């Protein structure tokens, strides 16, 4: 089974303070740590599980700056066979559509049965790359995938809908799946695998390799801190004081 996984290196912002840089269009990067996008790490693990079950090869691809190679190399250590970096530095402003079109051009000669990616990246929250890439490649897709079972040419796929409901689909391969977090348990790379991955080649694709024009669908005009909406009444004081106030508040509401 030939597998492709699209990966993105993103700043880890879930528990970090995010500041806007001087241009007003980018964030201050230096105090953030960067790592594989969370949903993508599940997509990678799902590909490794499929490879373990059916054999074949995994190609990982990332559109990113040079440090994305660290992320690709980790993917190689975990079980990918080939890695490609599309040099983001060559392509100017990106959005979900342009990212997918560049990926498509890079992958046009790579055969695949299953192409996996995370359903969303935590930095741009677009949910776009999987389905747009599928459309450009002429393959069917499913997003928010929480389970994949493959038998022969068919895949049984569960999508996670709102309210805990699951949509069960039957799809034929090749197909593109944008997977949800939690679909599996991403592994750690073993030391031996790390050592072997260290020397592997990462293929670079730049402007000369992907010469065609790629348009963006949208242009970022500015970043700003979300306006405070209905702001909570913040209680101040020691843990003891705020807890006492909270407890009596709950009591006033008749809940104790």
């Amino acid at each position: 089974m030939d597998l492709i996984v699209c990966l993105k290196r993103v700043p880890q912002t879930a528990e970090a303070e995010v500041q806007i840089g001087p241009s007003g269009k980018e964030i201050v990067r230096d105090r953030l740590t960067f790592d594989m996008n969370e949903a993508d790490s599940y997509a990678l693990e799902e590909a490794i599980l499929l490879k373990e079950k059916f054999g074949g090869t995994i190609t990982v691809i990332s559109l990113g700056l040079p440090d994305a190679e660290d992320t690709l190399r980790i993917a190689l250590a975990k079980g990918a066979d080939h890695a490609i970096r599309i040099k983001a530095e060559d392509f100017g402003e990106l959005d979900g559509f342009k990212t997918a079109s560049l990926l498509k051009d890079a992958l046009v000669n790579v055969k695949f049965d299953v192409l996996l990616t995370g359903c969303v990246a935590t930095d741009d929250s677009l949910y776009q790359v999987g389905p747009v890439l599928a459309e450009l490649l002429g393959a069917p897709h499913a997003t928010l995938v929480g389970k994949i079972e493959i038998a022969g040419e068919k895949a049984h796929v569960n999508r996670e809908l709102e309210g805990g409901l699951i949509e069960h689909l039957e799809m034929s391969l090749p197909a593109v799946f944008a997977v949800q977090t939690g679909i599996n348990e991403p592994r750690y790379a073993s030391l031996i695998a790390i050592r072997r991955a260290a020397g592997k080649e990462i293929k670079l694709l730049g402007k000369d390799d992907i010469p065609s024009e790629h348009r963006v669908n949208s242009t970022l005009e500015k970043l700003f801190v979300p306006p405070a909406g209905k702001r909570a009444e913040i209680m101040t004081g020691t843990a003891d004081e705020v807890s006492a106030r909270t407890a009596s508040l709950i009591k006033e509401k008749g809940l104790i």
Partner: protein
Amino acid sequence: MNFDLTSDQKMLQDQVRKFAQTELAPLAPEIDKSGEFPWPSLKKMAKLGLLGVIVPEKYGGSGFDFVSLAIAIEEISRACASTGVIVAVNNSLTTYPILEFSSEELKKKYLPQLCSGEKIGAFGLTEPNAGSDVAAMESTARLEGDHYIVNGTKRFITNGGEAGIYVVFAYTNRDLKHKGISAFVVERDTPGFSVGKHEDLMGIRATANCELMFEDVKVPKENLLGKEGDGFKICMNTLDVSRIDIGAQAVGIAQAALDEAVRYSKERKAFGQPICNFEMIEALIAEMATEIQAARLLVHYAGFCKDKGMQKFSKEAAMSKYYASDIAVDVTRKAVQIHGGYGYSKEYAVERLYRDAKILELYEGTSEIQKIVIARELTR
């Protein structure tokens, strides 16, 4: 001159850090309290190749160098000091002397078991009356036919209660003083071997630190490491290597304390502002961070000396171990200080880190011994 980690070292650091923070750190307070040896964690680490970091692949190891081992030990210790030293002992005090000083047969027999986590290793050197003064050891091994008959008692043996394979030191000829000491590989299930009392330690409490008893233990002749009388040399060379890892463990513990202190100082408010705004706290944090960085560089340099194949790196190893343990005690103390009264409570990790750090100045050569090693390299 290049301070960058290599590509594989960077990946190793990334994966070990994630593993340790996710899988080991949550257990650290628990096993500190219970003293339970972290077998499930060790099995997971075996799968990742962390129990045989420097062992070549053909013996079931990962085939990394000593700087890489130090990086791994730092990350493991940053999450859990007990687990850090357990893994350090398995790597540098057990697999290393077997790899360096044993026959091909012994390597093939024991290294795969130690790398796979099937058995864990321990280092039987210290005795009730022989600590820094190694030559004061009382254990003996006498050759009878195809076996050495080993007698004696070892004390304060990390992993002692749970290990399956022991590197043990005993006199084969007491008249030759330290040149009469020999080293052996002893299996746990050999008749006459038993585990004695479990030490109730101040820190690193999950390390199965025990007394070992040898009563007419019959060890096959071929389990001798090197030649008869090589024991002291093997011991000193092995300790040179392991001191790099104790240095790494110290850096890991200190880094964990700094992480906690920085976070706390940003959250904790006094006089209407976060305490990290106060200059005295800033000074503490600056000192801690600088000490840690200096210690880490010493540790990496000592590993680099070993990797480069330097015959004599005792001084570099001793410097890294001495300095890193010294600052680990200092940094953890400062971290408690930054936490104020809370730092003295078991609710906060720094209380444990402070206790864990103290052993660093005592085991695998006290700080005083390290200074002797360093000074004598310069004066003799």
